[in-house]
């Protein structure tokens, strides 16, 4: 049963990922990204990371992809891109080789590191209900300073983006210029 879930979710992830890089229309690429993100959320559920699965759906599929689609619509770039034009003819074969190299190197490292996984013994039986409590305890006891700093990061990002995308108008337009 777990294997079936794994295979189906992996198929979602890989089909979506390939869709992101081969679809010509940016809107289709964004929707393929949603498929990948849902597949990763299914993997999170299978790995008993329930809170992260919910956050994955809400933040990634809900907020980030909507932001992407919003920008695509705002800029009107939702027309299909012509992928047959290649400014550097050797770029795609080289990228394919580099991609295969990256995957090969990481997989080789995983295969070599399998002994470490085996030596760690059997995985502990986790009680799924405790996931949120355990995560909260870890976050608010051990990593509370990092958690507070993320709020600073978010404020800085929001303020910086508002400043960055402001239209510079004549001074009288003042308050209405910001988006």
């Amino acid at each position, binding site marked *: 049963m777990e294997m079936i879930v794994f295979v189906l979710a992996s198929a979602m992830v890989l089909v979506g990922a390939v869709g992101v*890089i081969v679809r010509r229309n940016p809107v289709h690429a964004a929707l393929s990204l949603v498929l990948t993100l849902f597949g990763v959320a299914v993997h999170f559920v299978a790995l008993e990371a329930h809170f992260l699965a919910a956050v994955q759906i809400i933040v990634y599929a809900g907020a980030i992809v909507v*932001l992407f689609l919003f920008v695509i619509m705002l*800029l*009107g*770039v939702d027309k299909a891109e012509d992928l047959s034009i290649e400014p550097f003819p050797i770029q795609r074969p*080289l990228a394919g080789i580099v991609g295969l190299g990256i995957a090969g190197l990481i997989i080789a490292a995983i295969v070599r590191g399998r002994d470490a996984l085996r030596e760690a013994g059997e995985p502990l039986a986790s009680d799924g209900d405790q996931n949120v409590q355990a995560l909260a305890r*870890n976050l608010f006891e051990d990593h509370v300073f990092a958690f507070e700093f993320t709020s600073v990061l978010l404020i800085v990002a929001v303020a910086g983006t508002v400043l960055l995308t402001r239209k510079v108008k004549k001074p009288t337009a003042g308050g209405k210029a910001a988006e």
Partner: protein
Amino acid sequence: MTAVVLAAVPTTTYYLVLAAILFAIGAVGVMVRRNPLVMFMCIELMLNAVNLSFVALATRFADIDGQTAVFFVMVVAAAEVVVGLGIIISILRRRPGVNADDLAELKG
């Protein structure tokens, strides 16, 4: 045969290999696509691959720290998308229809 498939349990290695493939697809996407928005989506793919391996190893070693790391990666990814899309908007507003290859003013 069916019983074997049903009884099989995906080990941590399976998840790590899947994450490696996902990361490589994202990296290839950044290298071949020229639309800045699609390049950003490929960066999200790579971040998700790393998240997946974090969660797989956190479950394997029953250590919740890995899931906390994923939480922070998600926060940083959200902030990164906001700032990156802001930059893309301010570039494309000035020069509509531009792609990443055309932004070469700083080229030496």
